[in-house]
């Protein structure tokens, strides 16, 4: 199983854990039974947040995350070191989630889990009850079209670079920027950061909420 040598030139900042992640991944590929679990442990919360915010429904997000991580577990040998490990993991998880969204769309007979609609994405047990604003923001985020939500989640919520997100989503960086900007504008409106002047037409709500195509060149 090949895993080329770590691309040292691409490891920007040791403090962000990428060197550690690469070592863990290499150890996993070499047969260390604990390495992958340790690696996932470092990113689990963040990846869970990605799945939950992308899919908006806990059980499906859990299924998607475990599917994705097991796929990564087995595909670790194909990791080529040209992206940071965390970017690679994000890509696997986001793709698993988007696959599910596409399947939902392809199968109208399958009940569509209620996507936005409420503050559902945030569990009431998440000790966020006091964080009214966080709930509001999560709810507003859940109302965004899927593409915009994904871009904003990765760039703004998780602080990934536009370039990394472009790599994760498989779209040009300009598309990521556009999706982020459009999504932020909608959030600004829905969260009351922006007065809704009558003479400026707001963007009509995307049909089907999260499954719309809205946003992005």
């Amino acid at each position, binding site marked *: 199983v090949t895993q080329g040598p770590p691309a040292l030139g691409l490891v920007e900042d040791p403090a962000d854990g990428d060197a550690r992640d690469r070592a863990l991944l290499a150890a996993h590929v070499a047969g260390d039974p604990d390495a992958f*679990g340790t690696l996932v442990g470092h990113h689990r*919360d*963040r990846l*869970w*947040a990605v799945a939950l915010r992308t899919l908006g429904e806990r*059980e*499906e997000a*859990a299924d998607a*995350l*475990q*599917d*994705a*991580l*097991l*796929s990564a*577990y*087995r*595909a670790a*040998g*194909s990791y080529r070191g040209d992206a940071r490990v965390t970017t690679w993991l994000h890509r696997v998880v986001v*793709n*698993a989630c988007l*696959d*599910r969204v596409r*399947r939902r769309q*392809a*199968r109208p*007979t*399958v009940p569509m889990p209620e996507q936005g609609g409420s503050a559902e994405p*945030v*569990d009431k047990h*998440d000790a*966020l009850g006091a964080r009214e604003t*966080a709930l509001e923001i999560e709810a507003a*985020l859940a109302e965004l079209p899927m593409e915009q939500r994904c871009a904003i989640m990765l760039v703004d*919520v998780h*602080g990934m670079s536009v370039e990394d997100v472009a790599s994760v989503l*498989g779209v040009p960086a*300009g598309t990521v*920027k*556009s999706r982020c*900007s*459009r999504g*932020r*504008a*909608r*959030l*600004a*409106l829905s*969260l009351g*950061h*922006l007065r809704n*002047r009558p*003479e*400026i*037409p*707001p*963007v*009509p709500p995307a049909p089907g909420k999260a499954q719309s195509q809205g*946003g992005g060149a």
Partner: protein
Amino acid sequence: MTDAAPTHLDLDQLADALAGEPHEHLAGCASCTSRLGELQAAEAGVVAALRALPDPPVPAELADRLSAAFAAGSPLAAARSSVTALPAQAPRRRFLPAAAAAVLLVSGAGLGYALVTGSTSGDDIAASGDSAAGLAAGRGLVQNASGADYADPASVSAALPAVLAGTARAAESMDSTAMRAQPESEDQADSSAELPAPAAAAVPEDPLARLRDPAGLQDCLTAVLPPEEPDLRPRALDYATYQGQPALAVVLPDPEPGKLSVFVVGPDCAAADAKVLSFLRVDAP
């Protein structure tokens, strides 16, 4: 939705302008320019609020499932599950006990990637229970034998064009080397003492012979192909190796354009247990 002022930029257009897309209208419209400034200011607040969002903690059940899956040892062990165990279009899966998780996880993982297909490929393929057999045996799928090792991405990439073209034939070398390479652990040696001695075997038994037979192949593909995707057919079959062991690679369409999904299964692949050795997604040549 609204026809209030069609000449002004709508919110998306303003957002695009903010993202750097030039817009002629802005130069001559004080209202929109002002609006753009407001949006810019508001955006900063939105970004700050988003950045402050806490990550929701992983549910304990999910953490347990993941731990169990990764602690289960090799993915091969975890993969010894029937893909068909996954309920088709099921009632939503609930959180499972950890013990069951590892089993279902793997089948789910494969399906999640491999078994979504375009919905229009079933032109002349019967959506019957034996469609897998029809696809595999009767639909002209070539039984490639590329000799590739599907644990080696480079080997797979090199072999894939010929495999897809149905022209990958290295059967002779594959059969013999695969047999010789087959290691037997001590505790298995007794029960497999009947295996032909490599040196003496003029015609070594083909470990994949069962999967070359239409009935055996059907049995295996039943496990690999999802019952709810009757239209899905393999793009190619490759009687190859995985980590030096004989294995069948089933190349499937992938939901992502330009990709292919590959299930690598062992010689014992059967309806009750696909014996998935590996699952990979590769770039289509």
